[in-house]
């Protein structure tokens, strides 16, 4: 098991946003977490990355409890996140943003150009824009940059927070295609999405999150055909 979460609880002051959830990801899988606004998806990702501290529960990565590992050191363990809102450094160029993906390594300059080329192969658009300031990219380009930057750290588990948010349908198709491509290169993915149709058909397994609780889990394809889910998330039910 690559990621194992057990009975995790996370609170903001008195408000409990995550109310005891368990979830796991095997190496090589795409697992999606689907839920409405405010369900607690971002909260969960932030807790995995260490930005938020859990009130209770265990997070194990590769069999090791990561509670004691400082957030900035989790990248070195092989966990990297493309955060909600993309988190592009607006005053850095596209190239500099990508280079930030390797910051965690003291030897970040070694094999730098190979890593950059790898990202440019995946996102040729970024190469055309490499000296443009990150803040001036279009939303779709920023999303590519955000994913590309996370991949620069050569993660074993990539955390994606709503990569399709605010993108045109054509762009969404492309992002999901790339997500599968990243999986084929051996990276496991935890994909948070509101675009349930796309996410469920892309993922191996899925969890449905409702106000801090997991209400359903199963294979992506099965959930896609589940009546209750169709009704609540796909807008196609009876």
């Amino acid at each position, binding site marked *: 098991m690559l990621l194992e979460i057990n009975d995790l609880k996370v609170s903001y002051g008195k408000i409990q946003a995550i109310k005891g959830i368990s979830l796991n990801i095997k190496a090589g899988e795409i697992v999606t977490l689907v839920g409405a606004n405010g369900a607690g998806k971002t909260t969960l990702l932030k807790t995995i990355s260490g930005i938020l501290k859990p009130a209770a529960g265990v997070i194990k990565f590769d069999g090791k409890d990561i509670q004691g590992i400082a957030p*900035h*050191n989790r990248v070195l363990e092989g966990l990297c996140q493309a955060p909600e809102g993309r988190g592009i450094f*607006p*005053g850095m160029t596209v190239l500099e943003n990508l*280079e930030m993906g390797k910051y965690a390594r003291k030897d970040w300059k070694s094999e730098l150009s190979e890593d950059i080329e790898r990202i440019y192969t995946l996102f040729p658009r970024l190469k055309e824009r490499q000296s443009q300031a990150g803040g001036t990219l279009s939303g779709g380009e920023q999303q590519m940059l955000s994913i590309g*930057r996370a991949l620069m750290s050569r993660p074993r588990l990539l955390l994606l927070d709503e990569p399709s948010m605010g993108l045109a349908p054509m762009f969404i198709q492309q992002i999901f295609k790339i997500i599968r491509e990243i999986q084929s290169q051996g990276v496991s993915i935890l994909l948070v999405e509101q675009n349930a149709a796309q996410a469920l058909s892309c993922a191996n397994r899925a969890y449905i999150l409702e106000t801090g609780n997991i209400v359903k889990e199963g294979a992506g394809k099965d959930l896609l055909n589940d009546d209750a889910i169709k009704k609540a998330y796909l807008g196609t039910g009876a």
Partner: protein
Amino acid sequence: MDFSILWTEFFGLTLDGIVVGAIYALVSLGYTLVYGVLRLINFAHSEIFMIGTFTSLGLSIVFGFTGLEEPLGIVLFLLVFLVMALASGIVSGMSAVLLEFVAYRRLRRRGASRLSSLISAIGASFFLVEFYRLTTESKDWDFPRMLSKDPIFSISSAYFTLDKIIILLGAFGLMFGLDRIINKTRLGRGIRAVSQDEKTAILMGVNVDRVISFTFLVGGVLAGFASTFYMLFYESTKFNVGFLLGISAFTAAVLGGIGNIRGALVGSFVLGLIQQYSSVVLGYNWRDVVTFVILVFVLLFKPTGLFGEALQRARV
């Protein structure tokens, strides 16, 4: 008001404005860098500068140059000056790191409000001023003239003396070095990342505490070098030397757009020039009044400074 002096002395005033501006620039970078990463005005930064002036002074006493009558030879001077600048840079840099550790870090860990940090900053500043006031007997301390101030050459009314040339070369060298550090080194990239988006910086593996310490170190070292240049130029210091210089450097940073490195540099030279020109037109005593007026006007009417948000790209 006498404008005719402004014209006859124009080149000389311009040269002095640039020299003074270069000293402001080195100090204002400390304000702007720290503001970038912490969104905090480090009010004790002026005292970090003051500590540097006393370090240079202390060395001049240790070297036995007090009351020196003949200037040193150029080679010996350069050697002595380099030692003083390095020592002041190190002492100021370490003091700044210590200051952050003592006055800000705990507050930040506890998620205290900006206002608490600001009060802590002012408290630290008072402590340092009073500590130096007591230990230096509130006196004006003269710095020996180790270098002849006869002009080497002149352009119209601008007399290029060795001290001015050394200050300009030194300051521009340091600015270039800073640019390299900020843009090419790992910790420099960390400073930019934390300034632009702290949360994402953490996700990329940036150790924010370390970056903040490094920021204070860089700002402190620059202020330390600036203090040695200041001593060479003004040849005197006192426990409250940081106050007016700090206000000028801070005004320069605000004028250029606080948090913006290029802004701080441009603001410093603009302020240096304005101070020189206005002090002959209005009289020298008005110099600091002009500085305060600029500070108040910028804060009231254009708080984002000359470059405002348009120069977002240039933000640290």
